[in-house]
């Protein structure tokens, strides 16, 4: 496991550890993506970057969000290593929610995660006032950290898509559109 994979596994553990075999708790994908984004811009996930991606929202619309492909890939890797389990749940809006929780193997691996990595992860997901874990909630297509103890809320800027300075010139494929439309090459 890489250090970033350990961080990711620890994030998943922090949100699911209160569950047991009778009532297992799963952490959903979108909150994980939001935490990964927050971890990237705070320098916690060292080898990840992000790019805008169109993410399906719960109400059936789509929203541009800064998604880390490296983070998604590491989730896949944790699945392949059998350190986490995956669950797909349907929603009332005919969409799907994907959720994860550590396996027994994953729980054993978590015990070996160094304290430094644990502290780094906790520094972004713990409410500094109450020392409890933030819930990640979605309100009007915006994602927030929310502390259930003190009510503190902090927006996660995963939907703040950054612009880069650029210039383009018009381009259209060079084939003859008359031909494309009529279906006969050279037919004017």
């Amino acid at each position, binding site marked *: 496991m890489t250090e970033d994979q350990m961080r990711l596994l620890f994030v998943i553990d922090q949100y699911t550890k209160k569950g047991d075999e009778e009532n297992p708790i799963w952490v959903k994908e979108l909150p994980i993506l939001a935490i990964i984004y927050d971890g990237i811009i705070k320098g916690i996930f060292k080898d990840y970057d992000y790019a805008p991606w169109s993410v399906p929202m719960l109400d059936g619309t*789509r929203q541009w969000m800064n998604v880390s492909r490296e983070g998604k890939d590491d989730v896949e890797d944790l699945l392949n290593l059998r350190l986490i389990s995956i669950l797909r749940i349907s929603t009332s809006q*005919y969409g799907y929610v994907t959720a994860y929780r550590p396996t027994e193997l994953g729980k054993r691996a978590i015990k070996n995660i160094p304290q430094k990595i644990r502290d780094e992860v906790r520094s972004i997901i713990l409410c500094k006032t109450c020392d409890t874990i933030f819930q990640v909630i979605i309100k009007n297509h915006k994602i927030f950290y929310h502390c259930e103890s003190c009510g503190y809320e902090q927006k996660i800027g995963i939907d703040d898509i950054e*612009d880069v300075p650029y*210039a*383009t*010139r018009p*381009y*259209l494929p060079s084939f003859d559109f008359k031909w*494309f439309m009529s279906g006969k*090459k050279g037919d004017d």
Partner: protein
Amino acid sequence: MTELLGDDYIKDDLLESIKLGNVRIILSELIPCDRNTLESIGQKLMSKRTLHGEFVTMLMDHFPESTTFVSEPWCNSVRVVDSLGSDYLSCEASMQDPDDVVEQEEVIGMFFSHEGHVIYGAQITRIYDRVENGTPQFSLDHIARIVVDLMNDSSLLMDTLITHHQRRIIDCIFKGTPTSRYKFVGIIADIIDPHFDDVNDYADGEEYQNEMEQLIDNLQLVHKNEEDGTIAFIGDAGIIIITKESEKYELLVTFYSLLKSAEIFIDSLFHRLELLWDELFQARKLIEKTSEGDYSVITRAQNILTEATANFTILNSTVSYLDRGFELIYERWHQIKDSTNTSLRNAIQIDHSLTSLLKRINDVGLVLQSLSSEVEGLQTLLSTQIEQQMRRVYNALRDNTRSTSEVIRASERTGDALNVIELILSGSIAFDIIVAIVGEYNTPLSALAMNPEFQFLFFFLSALMWLIIVIILKKGMDWIKSRVERNHLVRISINMKCDPEAIEEFLSKKDVISMDEEFLVDRETVRVLYNMHDNNGVHLAAITLTYDRKHKLLQEVSIDAQARDIESLKKRVLDELSKAIECHE
């Protein structure tokens, strides 16, 4: 691997693993269209002018009668560069977003066809201070951000060009959020860095693949044409072609993008149809509530059903556009496919995609058919509930009117009595006036009356006279009343068990005027209004019989009649009923 330090625009250090040179972006989307619609858009853009080249802004003039027009410092503009009747329009568009804090020169090419295919094309000339110079300059991280910017801005630009009907379709399917309209991405570049001879090295499952997937989603296939060295990366949401001979692949990439964008549209349409089922289910639940007696939700059910019906109509019209557009596309593809590159064509299985798409469009028709039946069924159900509600209102109104009539008639009777009193009083006043004019007059009997011996006798005689007059007047009034036939409304509550079939058998022999059946969850109330006649066929009364078929209960009989003797009529009605229908407690 190149590291780019964090800058003022991006909060993170980007890992620039892959760079491309001479990058051309093709964004493709499907907007339902037809020849007349394209003609209308063409007129808006002055496409018929001999000399193309005028820029048309998309601003709206709210005071067209005024002399001048004040523009905004930044606005989008479109210039037609080519058009062919109602077949297609080809334009150049300059997009300026006043909210952009970053220097951007977005000039793109646009192509609309009457089949609804829209292509936006742009060649990147500069990112930051890196200018296109034929070398791999532009990282996929930056290209991904530019693609998103172009997707959003092109959606906003297109919203100002399309017709109201097209906007209605788009808003219905994408729930009015332009950001939900994502487009299929085609990238054609001359050169890639790093360049691997074994293209499988790009699909490493790690760094390079992650970079690719930022732009084209899950990487499905990496293909190399050994003849000319062209590499194709095919993903769920895009395709990247690295080739020195772009002309050879432009047609194929464009066609593939059209198909994929149509798939995106069908996905969104199908999802919207699923949501429509949800809306109809909600309407059904509310209508069922009304049949349980909760009439407060009728308006809500009506609103939801009206909205859902409007959305259904819009979505239904979309499929006609798709059918028409893709029949033409299918023919066209078979005419041009031989001129496309066989190796890549087979790799991306374009024939299969097209056939599959046509089948999907066909299958959407099945869903729409089911939805149509559901919409019709719910409308009928709701109309029935509204009709029953109207009947209840009508019955209440009818009862109120009858009560009011009774009050009016009672007032009229009181008025008659007052008229009699008025006559008596006026007579008294007339005598008083005469006495005032001629003075008290005496008769021989006056002296007798003054005699103390007869005073009591006269007093008793006066009282007797008063009593006689009162009796005469009362008798007179009663005689007048007895000569008048009065309106009666008598309601007799029965609430006894009986056989509904016996009631219906009895009613089958009657002159039934109306029958009102109310089917509710807990009862089936039937109200029958019939005319009652005597043996000579003279109308006696209108009888309303109310019974509950489900609980076999005769509830009430109402008699509405104009009769001198309502009591005998009431007895006659009840006798008739008891003879025909056997009731018990």
